C-alpha cells in the first residue's frame, strides 16, 4: 500500500458495500513493476480500489499513467507483481471492460459502422444492434452524425464517439486514457458530461489525466503517480485539500510540469 492511503473503518465498510454490487472490484495491485529495455516505467506500485466511483490516475507527463492503465487492462504484462480484478485475472476481466486511447482509434468507417463493429465482434444478434447504436449515439450527443465518416468529426466528437463505442455494451469497467487531451474547453465539457453520465449509471471508471482541474471535477479518489511510483492514493477531497506527499503538493501548486 502506498503511503498516505488511509483506510478508516467507515470507508472500508462503505467500499465493501459497493463491492457486493460490482463483480470486478476490488482492483488490487501488488508490487507491480513494468520495464522496457531495462528502463523502469512502473516501479513497485501497490493499491486497492474498492469503490465504484470514478478513480483518477493523476500525474505529470511521463509519470507512467497510460502504462498503468494498460497494465490494469491487460494490454501489457507486469514484469513483476500481480493485478487482480475481484476474483478474476486481468485477462478474464478484460471481457467485461473497455478502454479508449488518448488519441481515439476510430475505424475508417461511418460513425454508425464504428459502433456496429463492436457489436458484430461481440456477437450481438442482428436485430438488437441498431437499438444499441441509437442509444449510444443519443447518449453521446451524436444522433445526427450517424452517417458521417468518423474521421470527419471534430476532436471532441471523435473522443465522445470513442467513449460511446467503448460503452455501447455497458461494460462493468471503463478505462479512459487522457480522454480530453488536446481538446478545447467546450469539447472537454462535452466529454466530461458523458463520462459523468456513464459513471452515474454504475460503471466503474478508471481514467488518467494530467489536468488538475479535471481531476477535481471528476474524481472520487485520486492516485498520484510520478516517475513510475504511486506517491499518494486518497479520496479526492482529502487529496486536493491536504496532500500528504510533498511532490503531490508541489504538483497541485503548479510547480511540477503538468
Amino acid at each position: 500500500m502506498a503511503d498516505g492511503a488511509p483506510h478508516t473503518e467507515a470507508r472500508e465498510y462503505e467500499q465493501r458495500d459497493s463491492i457486493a454490487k460490482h463483480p470486478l472490484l476490488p482492483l488490487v495491485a501488488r508490487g507491480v513493476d513494468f520495464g522496457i529495455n531495462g528502463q523502469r516505467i512502473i516501479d513497485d506500485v501497490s493499491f486497492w480500489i474498492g469503490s465504484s466511483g470514478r478513480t483518477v490516475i493523476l500525474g505529470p507527463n511521463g509519470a507512467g499513467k497510460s502504462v498503468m492503465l494498460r497494465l490494469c487492462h491487460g494490454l501489457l504484462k507486469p514484469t513483476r507483481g500481480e493485478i487482480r480484478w475481484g476474483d478474476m485475472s486481468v485477462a478474464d476481466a478484460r471481457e467485461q471492460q473497455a478502454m479508449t486511447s488518448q488519441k481515439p482509434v476510430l475505424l475508417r468507417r461511418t460513425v454508425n459502422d464504428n459502433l456496429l463493429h463492436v457489436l458484430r465482434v461481440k456477437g450481438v444478434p442482428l436485430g438488437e444492434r441498431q437499438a444499441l447504436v441509437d442509444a449510444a449515439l443519443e447518449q453521446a450527443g451524436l444522433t445526427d452524425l450517424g452517417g458521417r465518416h468518423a474521421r470527419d468529426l471534430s476532436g471532441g466528437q471523435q473522443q465522445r464517439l470513442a467513449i460511446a463505442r467503448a460503452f455501447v455494451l455497458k461494460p462493468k469497467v471503463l478505462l479512459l486514457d487522457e480522454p480530453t487531451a488536446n481538446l478545447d474547453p467546450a469539447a472537454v465539457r462535452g466529454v466530461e458530461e458523458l463520462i459523468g453520465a456513464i459513471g452515474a449509471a454504475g460503471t466503474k471508471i478508471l481514467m488518467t489525466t494530467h489536468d488538475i482541474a479535471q481531476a477535481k471535477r471528476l474524481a472520487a479518489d485520486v492516485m498520484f503517480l510520478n516517475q513510475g511510483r504511486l506517491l499518494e492514493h486518497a479520496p479526492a477531497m482529502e487529496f486536493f485539500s491536504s496532500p500528504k506527499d510533498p511532490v503531490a503538493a508541489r504538483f497541485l501548486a503548479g510547480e511540477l510540469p503538468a
Partner: protein
Amino acid sequence: MVRCWRSKRASERMTLCVLMRTGFRTHETIWGRRRPYDRFSNMNESPSAIGTALSMIATLDADLFEIVLLSLQVSLGAVAIASIIALPLGALIALQRFPGRRAVVILLNAMMGLPPVVVGLMVYVLLSRAGPLGSMGLLFTPTAMVIAQSIIVLPIIAALSRQTIADLHEEYGEYLRSLGCTPMQSIATLLWDGRFRLLTAIMAGFGRAIAEVGAVIIVGGNIQHSTRVMTTTIALETSKGNLALALGLGVMLLTLALGINAAALVISDTARRRYG
C-alpha cells in the same frame, strides 16, 4: 473465361502446327529478304504502322478485340484468384507471430521477382500430359494461363498487402486487442479498413500480369483464337515482321495498363483523402 475447349489431343496437335508455322515464318523473316531491321531503316513504315494500329483500334477489329478481351480475362482472373489467397495471407503474416516469420517475409519479398518464364516452365511441367496434373488436360488453355499468372502475382499482392496491413495494425492493434477480437475478426477488420490502400497492391499485381509474356506463351502456346493474348501476339507479330499489328497491340496494352492504373490511383487517392 473457361469456354468449352477442343479436345486435348486436337489442341496440342494444333499448337504444334502453329508453333511450327510461326517458327518457319520467323526463320524466313530473319534469314530471307525481309529482315526485321530493314523495316526500321524505312522511316515511312513506322507512321503507317501506327496509322494501321489506330485504324484497327478505331474500327474495333474483331481479331484485335478477341485478343484484348482474352488478355483482360486471363489477367483479371489471375489477379482475382491471387487476391483471394494473398490478401488474407499477407494479413495473417502481418499479425501472427510464429517461428520463421522473418524467413517467410524475406521469401515472400524475394518471390515478388519470380521470373515468369520459370513459373511458366513449372506450370508446363505440372500440366503437361506426363505431369502430375496432366490428366486434367489444361495445358494450352486459358485456364493454364490463369494458373501461371496467379502464381506470378500472388507473392506481389501478398508482400505488399502484408506491409499495408502491418502499418494499419500499428494503429488499430490496441483497439482490437482491447475488444478481444479473434485473429479472423482482426484480419477482416484490417482488410476492410485498408481496402483502398490494398487496391494499390492489387493493381501492382495486375500490372505484372497483363504485361507478362514468358509464362503465358509457354503454358498457353499462343494459339490463334484460343490462347493468344496481347503480349504473346506482340512477340509473334514482331518476329514475323508484322509491325502494324504489334504496334497496335502495344498501344492498346499501354493504354489499358495506364488507364487501369490511373483509375485505381484516383480511386485510392480520393478514398484516402476522404477516409484517412
